[in-house]
């Protein structure tokens, strides 16, 4: 399947935040969105998820405009992975994952045993089954992020929209989450994620897009897009991209 963002524009009040951004994503792709704070990444995500109305352009799934889709249908196609958060009530992890099934239930419905089995399989896939009975509010940040990804998986959508899945995690958990992201792409899911670390794009992205002040600066394969010049343009600091070994690149910021 193919998710296309076609010349999208959106914003709050009278202020445009994102203008004329076009992206596309196929099943099996990991598209990594880079950009400084306030460059419009989250706003663009909200527009894609139908939480914010588009000012211009279209969002297409396999060529069909999603503007008229009800929230339920949108949620069956696009699953959202928010940053690990703390809900006001101490739900059990298994119930948090089970919430993903809402898009597949009627308005008065409750999840069935089949839904519970799907949730359990999703937890299994992300390696968090042992947390099923734990309270979501009491597990670690890294575990919460994995649980939220499991929830998105249980939603059985074709695309996962992930808002900074590696932020606020320690180094080990960042790597664990990135490995899971690669695995999910292997299952033919399309993943769109933001990150503050260009290195993470090298590690797991098949394509990279760079946003600056609401406009698309560059898009393409990681080694084409993530260059010293592009990163300096996006973040305003000097960066060297070093090839450590064949096909393995890292970003080293200049400190002077």
């Amino acid at each position, binding site marked *: 399947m193919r998710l296309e963002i076609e010349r999208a524009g959106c914003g*709050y*009040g009278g202020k445009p935040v994102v203008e004329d951004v076009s992206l596309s994503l196929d099943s099996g792709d990991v598209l990594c969105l880079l950009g400084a704070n306030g460059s419009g990444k989250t706003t663009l995500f*909200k527009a894609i*998820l*139908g*939480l914010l109305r588009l000012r211009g352009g279209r969002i297409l799934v396999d060529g069909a405009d999603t503007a008229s889709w*009800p*929230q*339920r249908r*949108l*949620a*069956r196609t*696009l*699953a*959202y992975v*928010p940053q690990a958060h703390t*809900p*006001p*009530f*101490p*739900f*059990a992890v298994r*119930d948090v994952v089970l*919430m*993903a099934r*809402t*898009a*597949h*239930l009627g*308005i*008065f*419905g*409750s*999840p069935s*045993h*089949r839904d*519970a*089995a*799907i949730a*359990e*399989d*999703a937890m299994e*896939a992300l390696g968090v089954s042992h947390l099923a009975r734990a*309270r979501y*509010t009491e597990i670690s940040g890294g575990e919460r992020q994995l649980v939220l990804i499991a929830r998105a*998986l*249980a*939603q*059985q959508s074709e695309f996962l929209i992930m808002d900074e899945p590696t932020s606020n995690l320690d180094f080990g958990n960042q790597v664990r989450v990135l490995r899971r992201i690669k695995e999910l792409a292997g*299952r*033919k*899911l399309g993943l769109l994620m933001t990150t503050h670390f260009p290195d993470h794009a090298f590690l797991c992205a098949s394509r990279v897009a760079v946003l600056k002040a609401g406009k698309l600066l560059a898009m393409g394969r990681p080694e084409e897009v993530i260059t010293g010049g592009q990163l300096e343009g996006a973040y305003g600091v000097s960066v060297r991209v070093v090839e450590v070994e064949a096909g393995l690149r890292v970003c080293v910021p200049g400190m002077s």
Partner: protein
Amino acid sequence: MLVEPRPAGCAEILEERRTHARRAGAPLIILGFGFLAAVWCSLMVGRYDVPLATWWRVLVAPERGGIAGIVLLQVRLPRILAGVLIGAGLATSGAAYQGLFRNPMVSPDILGASAGAGFGAAAGILLGFGIVGIECMSFAFGLAAVLLTCAAAGRLARSGDPILTLVLVGILVGSIFTALVSLTKYVADPYSKLPAITFWLMGSLAAIHVRDVEFALAPMLVGLVPLVLLRWNLNVLSFGEEEARALGAATGKLRWIIIFCATLLTVSAVSVAGMVGWVGLVIPHLARMIVGPDYRVLLPASLLLGGTYMLLVDDLARSILSTEIPLGILTSLVGAPFFLYLLMRTQRGWT
């Protein structure tokens, strides 16, 4: 299909799930028995002593019950029914509001329902209406207060957090109606109407009549049934507007249905029994401590506990002193310290 459900017949998983269902069901069954015990207790407690044997006689042949029949069927039974409806209604609406507003400190009068209903009743008493007139006024103004809150918040919420706007406007509308209640009291005849208004505002089930139960029953059911049916969506909504929408919940529609139903419950309770505070705040808390935050269990648990609590408090109200204590005073006197105790005991905050 990216995640296929496991083939059925996997005994271990089925067994695990059965235990889960039992775990969720057991507390509800216990709460159900507690509720029945409270009903029985309320039938027994009172000035007029009715032995168990007389009970059966009255139930089998109500027309030959004599004084015992009148006491049981026309005084205690309606009062018990009203207490159950009011307790269950307030607790359920409190639980629903807490999920919708994602805040365990929210109570059913958050959008100004109680203040509006209080003013309606006070104005009804001031204008010399009969009891049905007073109840209708109370009901109408309670609903009007919430509609006013929602309409004003709807205009303001174009940009910004719709839930926060609702709460803030609710506080404003509530304080306007509270001021209007004070005004009504100020202009009321201090010898006849002022005491009546004051007494009504304290809340009581003393004057309950079968007719009051009939008056409150329909709106109570209209409020309760959709909330119980929507209990799964309440889980999803407690993750916040945007996340709930991304999960596929029709949040806009759901929000209004839940506000309407919870308000209907609060207003019908207040219009019949006056101001009965703290039930809608304390009971959902207590229920959450017993069964956890999952609304599939929490909502029925709140309903049962609310009914039980109201019956027990009413039993106290009519038995501690030789004159009856207004219910609202007792629910606050019992409710607030109990709430404090719950918070200190768990040390987990709002869990």
